[in-house]
């Protein structure tokens, strides 16, 4: 870039040499800024899962090490050290996740695909061992960039840090602001580094200025981020979302917001003999202002739903979707799902199903759920011998949890004389029900919402109650998790319930050894009235979609003649004893197997004050949003294709900056190495094409055939003819099972071409 300026600056006589040293410092500062940018992103992770101090130590240690070694070792050695540090780190990570290095080698393709997934927008926080991963990730870029900078190789020094930042941008963890700062830092390092090399002629400052301008412009205008993390919603407090939109839109993350509205629109209806709460999401990791689901997920066909251990009764529930949505309501604890939706169903590590595309109106499916029998005595004596997967997932608290929070929790429990996990849960539940009020009109507190809610607030809605209770239990060493979904809804017939947006709810599940997950309800009962009023108001105003055929004319509080459920409530019992509705499961340690929100399902609350979902009264008056209907695809995370293109582009970038051309050849060789049978290859190629098309136009609808999809796109857009060719090859492979090596290669090559050409920024590099 500035090489051509060298001669010119000498001839221009206003050049005033300032000397190199200040520029060297400025260049190093730029690098510090770049490093700080990605370390700041990683710190966000460690603040949630712990390890911030270790992170700082590693960064400082690597920086010092690089400084000391800069003159002592050769670049090749430094590269080896850097990579060695990475390998060591990731080995630790693999050990921690229970896989070991052997797995990584034997399942290299899985390892690569995980990385691609991550690079296409999965947040770091969704990883199982996000903390260890972070600590493994950071040493190499810090060491290498600092080492190179100390050797005055400024351009090269920016590359490791830049790649680290780019990766974090792709995962969606780095925000635009941080990215911008990092990029500016990197550019400063390069720019001032150049000035340093040329002894700092001021005349070259214009080059720098232009570069800054270009970079700032690019950073602001090019959005390379495939699926950024949900942005904090408290910026838009003036226009509150609806409760169900806030808590039920994204199975990966749910953000705690301020004031919300209640939407009276019907979401789904359920035919069941065992009414309960309908669960749509299970979250385990708390960041202070959001809940994140960590861990992998798999297709329902492959992994299914683990049944609880021990004996249990099963109940069947038939759900009919009335409004397009991104999550799938099930009864906890689900053991099987049958129906239209199972083709595109995934199951999280927590045993909660989630759809791969939006569910649409008219979708119908059956859920089989397990109910076990719990009673307070056995729960109280369940002990605390938690299996390891449980403690690993469900005891996390963010570093922002204050001591005051822990002290206050301990005080409350002391006052209630609670000394086993069951009593603790019951005491916290009772505390909130008696000391707090219900309101939807909340100002989102700054910082850790659980801290603020326990220490400074005295009213809120379900999200706050459930979040805070979960964190209090975790602070006491009781495994708990945050669960979202809907209350039972309005009973419109003997066995039929209509569930609206205003029934959206969040509650808590607590783990008991040999029983599994038991639901608790910290939200005060006055919720029912608020939500019911909203339904009556919506009906009075004639708002649309408030009723189905079945619910029209049924009073807002449901059919009245169903007192059983209420009578069954035993105070403090998480699950009603008589109904059999309740369940407790005895399951063993695996997270999936364990969850049974019994209390909820059965309608009774463990505490008398609980909302009684089953009682047939619809707690709903609620709010909810229309947003639930917007078909945003649950994996906001973008697509494999961009990830591949970017990885290829990264290799290309490395090539440009002097790393031997070997690298890019390696990448291609690498991928060829993973070629499988032609049929599989062609399918994969078509999948990439579909992602590409979905990105450019729209995703394929479920009832659309590949050919119909393409034809419909071609009718309205000028679609590249290569897409049709790939589709035909795919049809041949998938529907005729006959394709040869040559055909598969053609499909792969065409898609790769298309992909590269469409890739933002990176595509141009390649060309």
């Amino acid at each position, binding site marked *: 870039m500035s090489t051509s300026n060298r001669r010119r600056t000498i001839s221009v006589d206003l050049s005033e040499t300032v000397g190199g040293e200040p520029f060297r410092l400025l260049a190093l500062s730029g690098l510090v800024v770049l490093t700080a940018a990605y370390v700041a992103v990683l710190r966000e992770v460690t603040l949630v899962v712990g390890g911030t101090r270790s992170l700082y130590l590693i960064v400082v240690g690597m920086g010092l090490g690089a400084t000391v070694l800069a003159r002592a070792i050769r670049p090749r050695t430094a590269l080896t050290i850097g990579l060695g540090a990475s390998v060591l780190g990731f080995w630790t990570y693999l050990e921690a996740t229970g896989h070991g290095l052997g797995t990584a080698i034997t399942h290299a393709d899985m390892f690569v695909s995980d990385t691609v997934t991550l690079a296409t927008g999965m947040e770091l926080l969704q990883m199982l061992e996000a903390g260890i991963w972070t600590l493994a990730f950071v040493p190499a870029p810090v060491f290498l960039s600092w080492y190179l900078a100390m050797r005055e190789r400024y351009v090269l020094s920016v590359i490791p840090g830049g790649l680290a930042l780019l990766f974090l941008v792709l995962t969606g963890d780095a925000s635009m602001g941080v990215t911008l700062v990092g990029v500016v830092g990197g550019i400063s390092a390069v720019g001032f580094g150049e000035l340093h090399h040329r002894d700092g002629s001021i005349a070259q400052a214009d080059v720098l200025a232009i570069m800054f301008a270009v970079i700032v412009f690019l950073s602001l205008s090019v959005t390379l981020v495939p699926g950024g993390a949900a942005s904090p919603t408290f910026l838009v407090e003036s226009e509150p979302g609806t409760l169900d939109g806030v808590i039920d839109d994204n199975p990966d993350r749910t953000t705690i917001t301020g004031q919300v509205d209640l939407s009276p629109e019907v979401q789904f209806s359920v035919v069941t003999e065992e009414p309960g709460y309908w669960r749509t999401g299970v979250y385990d990791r708390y960041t202070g202002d959001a809940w994140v689901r960590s861990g992998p997920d798999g297709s329902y066909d492959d992994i299914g739903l683990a049944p609880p251990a021990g004996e249990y009764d099963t109940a069947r529930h038939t759900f009919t979707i009335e409004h397009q949505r991104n999550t799938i309501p099930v009864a906890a604890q689900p053991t099987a799902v049958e129906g*239209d939706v199972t083709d595109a169903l995934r199951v999280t590590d927590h045993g909660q199903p989630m759809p791969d595309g939006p569910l649409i109106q008219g979708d119908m499916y059956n859920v089989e759920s397990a109910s076990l029998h719990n009673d307070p005595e056995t729960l109280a004596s369940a002990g605390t011998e938690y299996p390891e997967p449980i403690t690993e997932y469900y005891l996390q608290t963010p570093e922002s949890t204050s001591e005051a929070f822990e002290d206050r929790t301990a005080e409350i429990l002391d006052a209630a004389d609670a000394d086993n996990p069951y009593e603790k849960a019951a005491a916290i539940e009772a505390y909130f029900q008696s000391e707090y009020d219900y309101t939807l009109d909340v100002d989102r507190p700054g910082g850790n919402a659980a801290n603020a809610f326990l220490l400074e607030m005295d009213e809120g809605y379900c999200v706050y109650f459930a979040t805070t209770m979960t964190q209090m239990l975790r602070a006491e060493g009781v495994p708990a998790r945050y669960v979202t979904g809907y209350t039972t809804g309005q009973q419109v017939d003997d066995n039929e319930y209509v569930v609206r947006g205003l029934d959206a709810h969040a509650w808590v599940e607590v783990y008991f050894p040999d029983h599994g997950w038991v639901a608790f309800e910290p939200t005060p009962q006055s919720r029912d009235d608020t939500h019911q009023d909203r339904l009556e108001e919506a009906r009075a105003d004639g708002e649309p979609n408030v009723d189905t055929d079945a619910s029209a004319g049924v009073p807002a509080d449901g059919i009245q003649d169903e007192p059983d459920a209420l009578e069954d409530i035993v105070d403090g019992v998480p699950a009603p004893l008589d109904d059999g509705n309740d369940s407790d499961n005895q399951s063993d340690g695996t997270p999936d197997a364990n969850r049974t929100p019994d209390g909820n399902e059965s309608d009774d609350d463990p505490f008398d004050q609980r909302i009684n979902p089953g009682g047939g009264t619809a707690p709903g008056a609620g709010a909810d949003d229309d947003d639930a209907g917007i078909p945003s695809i649950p994996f906001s995370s973008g697509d494999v294709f961009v990830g591949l293109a970017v990885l290829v582009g990264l290799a290309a970038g490395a090539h440009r900056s002097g790393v031997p051309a070997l690298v890019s050849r390696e990448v291609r060789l690498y991928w060829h190495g993973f070629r499988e049978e032609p049929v599989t290859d062609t399918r994969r190629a078509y999948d990439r094409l579909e992602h590409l098309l979905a990105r450019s136009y729209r995703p394929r609808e479920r009832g659309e*055939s590949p050919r119909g999809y393409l034809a419909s796109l071609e009718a309205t857009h000028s679609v590249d003819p290569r897409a049709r060719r790939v589709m035909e090859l795919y049809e041949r492979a998938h529907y005729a099972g006959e394709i040869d090596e040559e055909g598969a290669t053609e499909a792969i090559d065409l898609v790769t071409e298309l992909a590269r050409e469409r890739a933002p920024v990176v595509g141009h590099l390649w060309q």
Partner: protein
Amino acid sequence: MTDANPSPPTEATSRADTVEPLPVSTVADLAATVTENVGQVIVGHTDEIEHVVTTILARGHVLLDDVPGVGKTMLARSIARSVDCSFRRVQFTPDLLPSDITGVNVFNQKTREFEFQPGPVFANLVLGDEINRAPPKTQSALLEAMEEAQVTVDGTTRPLPDPFVVIATQNAIEPNRTYELPFAEVDRFMKKLSLGYPNTDEESELLARTVGHHPIESLDPVTNLESIIRARETVATVAVEEPVRRYASKLAKYTRERAHIGASPRGTIALLRAAQARAVLDGREYVIPDDIQHEVPYVFSHRIKTTSSGRDTDGDTIVEDALDHVHVP
């Protein structure tokens, strides 16, 4: 399960040895030629003509259901004339007897023996006109022939010619004077089609063609029996891979879950066969989901019985819903 194929399996296998399938492109041309030829008589309705042709290639039978006078009979006759084959027509009336269809044993005075006098069903193409005017007993005589590709008279079973295709028409009006086809018997028709009224342009064209000599009088055969038999063999060899089979069965399952009675397994078999023929018309040796989507409204709708209270009012609606909701693999 019962085979909807009019030809018994044994015959099919023995035929496979002797019948050489035509190339796919030849069959596609053949179908196009027949369709075009029939189109000289029937104005518009190209899709319906094509559906009849695919049904013949897919070894099925077809039911035309519409008001009188829209060309149902003419369509069947044109098809028969386009193929050089034996054609018989049976006008169903309330007093028609089963033996009027299958044939009777007649006592021959000279030989002093009973001789079988074949009924109209012994033809390659049988037009059962206004089939719903005859009582069920008579209808079932034809339907048994359709199912078994044979008739039994006085204890003697006689095979029907191959190919054997029934095109039946039924009147959608005058419900008081007709016997509705039993649900189980409607199931034996691979497809049910309605022609509908022509639009103004088409009707004007129709009038222009028919005002002098009716064009059917001058319609020449464009293919022969042997080609049809070989083309059927071609269709039978079209590949239907697992994803497509699953798709068909999921569509059927969807209808079963939503309707009082959904598409039967026989219906699913018929669907796949129709899709095979559709693939051949498109020049393909394998079935893709689009073929299924194209055929399913004609193959499934009449096999679905809805309850009156349901929100899905008829078979068509349920099939449409199924197409929207079932994932294309």
